[in-house]
Structures are given as structure tokens and as C-alpha cells.
């Protein structure tokens, strides 16, 4: 397990294998809501391939990053719901 990565999802620490996307990490954490729409509705991943933009989250302080297109890195800070 030496090569597991540690990330934090909304402050909660979890371990994921290398090659995991942020979206996969969210799924493992049981988090379905990635972001909040302009009218305040919850939004989650739809296409899983970078097109629909529904899976955006804040990664290491950068808002609106697509979780389905981003690989987990050790120490990554992921925040959902923005």
C-alpha cells in the first residue's frame, strides 16, 4: 500500500490508489454533489468525460476544476458544493 495517495475531501482524509480521478475519489467518499448551480440547486457528474462541466469542484483552491478530468495527487485538497 506504499503507493496510496492521501487526499482530503471537504476536510475528511482518505486514501486512494494512483490513477484515481477526483470524481472517483468523491464517489468513494459518497459525495454526489459536486457544485451548486446559479439558482442554488445541487449538481453532480453527468458525462464523466470532460464535456458537460457539471462535475466542477474546487481543487487546491482553484475553483471550477472538472473532477472527472483531474487525477488525484498526494496531499490534494478537494472541496465540493461551490
Amino acid at each position, binding site marked *: 500500500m506504499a503507493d496510496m495517495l492521501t487526499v482530503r475531501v471537504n476536510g475528511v482524509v482518505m486514501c486512494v490508489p494512483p490513477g484515481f480521478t477526483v470524481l472517483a475519489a468523491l464517489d468513494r467518499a459518497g459525495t454526489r454533489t459536486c457544485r451548486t448551480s*446559479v439558482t442554488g440547486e445541487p449538481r453532480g457528474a453527468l458525462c464523466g468525460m470532460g464535456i458537460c462541466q457539471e462535475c*466542477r469542484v474546487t481543487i487546491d483552491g*482553484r*475553483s*471550477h476544476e472538472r473532477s472527472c478530468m483531474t487525477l488525484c495527487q498526494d496531499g490534494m485538497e478537494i472541496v465540493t458544493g461551490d
Partner: protein
Amino acid sequence: MADADVIVVGAGIIGAACAYFLTQAGARVVIVDPTAPGTVCTAACMGHLVVMDDSEAQFALTAYSCRLWTDLAARLPRPAEYEPRGTLWVASTREEMAIAEAKSAFYRARGVEAHVVTQGEMAALEPALDSSLPGGLWVPGDSVLYATNAARWLLDQSGTTVLREEVVAMGGGRATLDDGRDLEASVIVNAAGAAAPALTTGLPIEPRKGHLAITDRYPGVLTRQTLELGYLASAHGQATESVAFNIQPRATGQMLIGSSREFVGFAPGVNRAIVGKMLERAQRFVPCARDWHVIRIWTGFRPCTPDNLPLIGPAPGDATVWIAAGHEGLGITTSLATGRLLADRWAARDSAIDPVPFAVDRVAAGAHG
């Protein structure tokens, strides 16, 4: 019997403001436009309501119009997204601080609140601005608006219905529709924006193309409409191509990024080269703009006159044709004053500002370089 007292051709922000004030003055108004109200140039803009100082006439018109907007503000519906954000004019060089000083003196002498801000003060006002910028001018009285919805509200308030038809000719107390029908009125207002010369030959109006980009939501990163002091040189020169830094934070947290100016006729396509320059300029003033996602880019055509002032009043040679067009990049700001000036003329009453600088016959067609 005539079909109306006044027929307004064009339901952009200008036609809507004319309908609003003319009906208040007691006129029966019909407004004609083949497209949905407020969806041409009015939908392409930033909606910055701004007092300008490039000439006494421009100042008088913009300051008067901004006062009229402020008077309306409390009644504007939420979708009009009126927000008193003020304007932060930013100097890009030490030399430009002299422009800030002069602009401040000009505004203050005419009763408009303005404060020169130092480098440190500016960093405190808007921390996202590059901290090496030397300072600027803070004008707290300006505001922003979602112009399409404001135009629709003005139309609703006026109670006029919009005839969804194209006008193919106007004059002699008549507007001819594309289905061949004639509408009669004592006055026909040409408020067709950049298309106005197609209906009144000889009007010196040319389309001046602009691009805007809108980003994803970055709430709180900027809170004021922020633009460079060099904007005036870009906007009010007649250069064939120019860009200036201009960002407007929207109520949603999105950023509207401008602005570009080109004389290229009615070519609606996105010019990637000029958009690149526009975004680079934005990043120079606001470094974190580098990380922003642009989600949409569009273009629009400002109705531009050779002296950058609109044409407001009767057309030479036909007393039944009045013009309300040529507002270039300030038509949202100056719409209410335009409507008021024409309504005053209709009611034969004095206006709050001198209408003479906007007289239609002051500039000849073909005067564009």
C-alpha cells in the same frame, strides 16, 4: 385616424426608453421591431451606467441619464440586476495618474463624487488588481444593469405593444412594414441602432464591433466595475482596432471581460486575435484572471458616429422623422436621457440639458476616417 401619435422603430434600450417617456408625456405609441425586444446590441453589452468626461456634451448627457437611472433604481425589477458598483478607473503607468487627477477635478467641479486613490488604497479596495499598479480614480456613483431586462421592463411600464414586423421605409408621417402595410403617425422615431442608416439615408452611423467574454463564477474576487484610464483613448478615438481593460463583476459572481473596438462592417464572427489581446490585457491588470474559465464569447455592433455623440432629434428635411440612434458604447447609460429629450420635444417643454449638441444635422455622412 392615425395609428398612433408616435411610431418607434426599434425595441432596443433606446426605443424602449423613448416609448417609456413618450407615453408618460401623453403620446399614444406603437413600437415596431421584427426581433424580440432588447436582443440586438442591447443584449451584447456590459450595461455599465457610467458618467463620462470626454466632452461637456457627453458629460451632460451621461450625468443626466445616470441621475434618471438612480431615480428609477428602486422600481427596477430584480431581473434588471441593477447594482450600484461604482467605477474604479485604474492607471497603468505613473504618467496616467495625471489623467486620474484631471478626471477627478473635472468630475468634482461638476458635482460628481470622485476620489484619486493611491497604490496602497487601490490594493485595499480591490486586492485582485496587480499590486504594482500606481493607483487610479474611484467614482462611487456609477452602477451596472442587465440591459435586456431593463429594456423589457421599460416597455412593459410604457404599456405599448411591440409589433413584430420589419419597417422597410419611413418618412412623410408613415412607416411602411415589410408586409406592405402603412402605419401613420405624426412622428416616426428611428431607433434602429446600427441599422438606422438603412431607414434614414445619410445618417453618419457605422457599426463598431465589440467582443465580450463571460467567465464562470468567482464571487467576491472583484466588487467594482474596474477599467483602465486609457479606456477613453480606446473608446473615443476612431482607431480601426483597439482593446482596453474593462471587467464587470456580475450579481452571479461571473466576470464580464471587455473590451474591443473594430471597424469591420457587420462581420459577427469571433476574432480570436483581438480576443487574445483583450484577455491578455485583463490578466495584466488582474493576474488571477489567468485561472478564470471563460464560458462564452460574443460580439455586438455599437452604433458609432464620427464625434462619438448620439443623434437625437428631427431628421433634416422631414419633420415627421426623429432620430434616436448612434449611441456607440454608451447607449445603455444614455438611453433614459435620450427618451426624455424626445418626450420633452413632443410635449414642447424645456429639457434639463441642452439638446443642441446632439442635433442630427451637426455631422455629415461619410465623415468616418
